[in-house]
């Protein structure tokens, strides 16, 4: 939900960045990396399900399937 509290978050976070120049990058890095890690872990589970491989191909519109053998479990 986007309400006033959502708008406040952006301002609070920018304030935190400006007041904590040595701290924010580490928090930001962990946040970005954790999202990519979650995606990898999810795809690992998905490819083991029936039709999972095909779903991944559709999801990312992969035409160059040969280059993604590891991802697809081939």
């Amino acid at each position, binding site marked *: 939900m*986007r309400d006033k509290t*959502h*708008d406040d978050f*952006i*301002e609070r*976070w*920018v304030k935190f*960045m400006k007041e904590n120049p040595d701290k*924010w*990058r580490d928090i*930001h*890095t962990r*946040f*970005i*990396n954790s*999202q*990519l890690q979650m*995606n*990898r872990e999810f*795809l690992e589970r998905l490819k083991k399900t029936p039709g999972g491989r095909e779903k*991944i191909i559709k*999801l*990312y*519109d*992969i*035409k*160059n399937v*040969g*280059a*993604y*053998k*590891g*991802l697809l479990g081939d």
Partner: protein
Amino acid sequence: MKRSISDLNELKDFCIRFCGIVERYTEYIIVSGFVAIASGRVRGTEDIDMIIRPMNIEQFIKMHGELLKNGFNAMQGTDPKELYEDYLKDKLSLRYTFKDEPLPEMEMKFSKDALDEYQFKTKEKLPLTNMDIWYSSINMNIAFKEELLKSHKDMDDARHLRLIYSEEIDEKEIMKTKQMIKRYRL
């Protein structure tokens, strides 16, 4: 395969490696969401948008070959001639990822009009991002997000950029860019 470098997030590492190869062949700029994320915006993304100056097919084949050698793959295919003719030349994006990983991806396309030309003319480096790469200017990014893209996510990106770079924002430049967007893109 985990490819992160300890003090770089994975998106930054991916982007720096990719830009380092592309810049040997042509001029490029990174635009849109990644500019906000590299500037500290806390949100997810699946892709990084890159605009490059058009190049001939021979140059593209060389650049593509070097990208492959360095662990990148184009999701749309393997034949560089087809990738060039069917996508880049048609003003469509080519999508590159690290081999065997669907994310993150770099969406690379040729510049197409006077607005893109202006983005190259006003490109800048942003020391706060801690990345030695070329970005379209903060003013341009704000104008695109507020005038053309307009989703909640884009409006939040623009707000973040306005707050972070408050001392450098040039409202006249943003207005000028918004006029150009109306002329060339709307």
